[in-house]
């Protein structure tokens, strides 16, 4: 009996010893720093012959450097990356592109590195780039593309999109454009023109002359067309404009107050609100056959419709409950549900391209807010507060929102300005979007290189 007890004891000892010697210690890491990721963007290398060709063709001293600056600026503006000063770089661009000396890049605290090369082939610009994980000492991404030399800024945007996607896991929003209403002159006599620019404020073009008031430009899903509202002899008209050709056509004259035309996700319809017999409701119009269909039919004021990305639902605002609130319905107008229940007045709802959130403007106690809520109205978050701001529009990845903000005038009526601003979905990284003139009513395109 004693022997059995002894053996059992030995077994238990060995079992527990074995289990102790193999039990793995686990440590939960639930905190870190939220600082933007330090990244080095090496100038894209080029040989002397290529350099001279680009100097002649594009009048740029160093195209590789200029492209790297476009990338650097995009990454910085995103708020997620901290591009390091080029003055600290120890390795030459051409060598770094072949095989980085990771210890050199680690020394300057870079965690990621972008290298590249530009060359000319059959009069075309060929660009190669690589993204490196400095700490793991390995390549994360390598791509090349060919385009016309004048497209060099877009090359910078496309590289940024690829890097952003690889390092954050979600699509970028850099190879995109923004259409907006450019404003000039005193507040009472503003000259308003349609303007379009790259998302970083470059390549601004004015699409109308400023003779007529223009409002609410919106891209269609392919980015080629824009719909907007303009007043002709004091009557609102909905226009379609082909950005590339400049050809413009009137979609229709609509009675009374017409608001905010916007494309359906398939680009086949325009959805808008207008007043018929003094009652403002939501309508769609088929662009091809121009057939108008009534979507809401309610004695209240229904405006600002926006489709969900799958086209199955529409969000809009209505004062049917007594105050202006946000509603969601099926795209045929059925199953209308109010989703905003917070204090204040809600308007300009816009469905996120991801489909998960609705951005809106809210007015409460004399302050304007830009916020987001889930599509069932839950999880309302106010991202930014100001004297006057409205018209949110989503970047195509559903992470950044652009809107416009007006400043208060002084007693003499001076000091008025309207500017574009962007803010991250988290409420961080609020930034002024530089424009040549005052600006309002921005609309963000989808990715051009899709």
């Amino acid at each position: 009996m004693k022997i059995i007890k002894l053996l059992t004891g030995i077994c238990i000892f060995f079992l527990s010893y074995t289990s102790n010697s193999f039990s793995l210690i686990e440590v939960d890491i639930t905190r870190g720093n939220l600082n933007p990721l330090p990244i080095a963007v090496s100038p894209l290398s080029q040989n002397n012959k290529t350099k001279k060709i680009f100097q002649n063709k594009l009048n740029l001293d160093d195209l590789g450097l200029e492209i790297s600056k476009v990338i650097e600026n995009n990454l910085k503006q995103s708020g997620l990356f901290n591009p390091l000063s080029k003055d600290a770089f120890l390795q030459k661009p051409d060598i770094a592109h072949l095989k980085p000396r990771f210890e050199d890049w680690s020394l300057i605290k870079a965690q990621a590195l972008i290298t590249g090369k530009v060359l000319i082939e059959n009069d075309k610009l060929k660009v190669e780039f690589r993204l490196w994980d400095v700490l793991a000492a390995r390549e994360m991404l390598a791509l090349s593309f060919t385009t016309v030399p004048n497209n060099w800024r877009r090359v910078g945007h496309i590289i940024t999109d690829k890097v952003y996607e690889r390092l954050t896991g979600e699509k970028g929003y850099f190879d995109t454009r923004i259409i907006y209403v450019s404003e000039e002159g005193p507040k009472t006599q503003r000259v308003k023109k349609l303007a379009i620019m790259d998302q970083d404020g470059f390549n601004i073009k004015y699409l109308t002359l400023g003779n007529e008031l223009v409002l609410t430009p919106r891209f269609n899903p392919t980015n080629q067309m824009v719909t907007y509202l303009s007043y002709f002899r004091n009557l609102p008209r909905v226009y379609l404009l082909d950005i590339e050709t400049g050809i413009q056509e009137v979609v229709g004259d609509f009675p009374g107050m017409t608001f905010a035309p916007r494309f359906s996700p398939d680009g086949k319809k325009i959805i808008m609100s207008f007043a018929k017999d003094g009652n403002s409701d939501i309508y769609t119009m088929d662009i091809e056959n121009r057939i108008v269909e009534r979507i809401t039919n309610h004695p209240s004021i229904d405006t600002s419709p926006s489709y969900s990305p799958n086209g199955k639902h529409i969000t809009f605002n209505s004062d049917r409950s007594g105050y202006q609130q946000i509603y969601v319905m099926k795209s045929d107008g059925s199953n209308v549900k109010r989703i905003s229940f917070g204090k204040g007045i809600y308007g300009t709802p816009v469905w996120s391209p991801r489909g998960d959130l609705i951005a809106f403007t809210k007015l409460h106690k004399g302050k304007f807010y830009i916020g987001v809520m889930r599509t069932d109205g839950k999880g309302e978050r106010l991202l930014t507060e100001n004297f006057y701001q409205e018209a949110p529009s989503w970047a195509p990845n559903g992470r950044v929102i652009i809107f416009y903000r007006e400043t208060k005038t002084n007693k003499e009526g001076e000091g008025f300005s309207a500017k574009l601003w962007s803010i991250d979905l988290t409420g961080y990284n609020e930034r002024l979007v530089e424009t040549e003139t005052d600006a309002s009513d921005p609309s963000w395109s989808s990715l051009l290189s899709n």
Partner: protein
Amino acid sequence: MDSSKLTLSEEDALKAQIFGCWSIPLGLPYNEDLLVRIKLKLRPDGTLIKTEILDHARMNMPGQGFFRVLAESALRAIQLCQPLKVPTSGYERWKDLQLNFDAREMLGG
């Protein structure tokens, strides 16, 4: 004392060190179930012999982009932090460690 665990102060020292090295990818969604578990094999001085991502298969699966981004950021943090602040004694106890990286609390805050 349970000899299979780090003491609270040993664990706190290690956590504090890694908190400082881990740049949480700010673009990650805060509402997704993202947890990255990494097994480490360490030398007595806290330098790394080997790292292994558990669930490594998720790194290359379609639709798991966020997992890969989080896992890579965790690996960078470990590299950046080494030598890790490990206890001065009891090497056998902690030569194999598992770190569970969970960013939800930070991103959702």
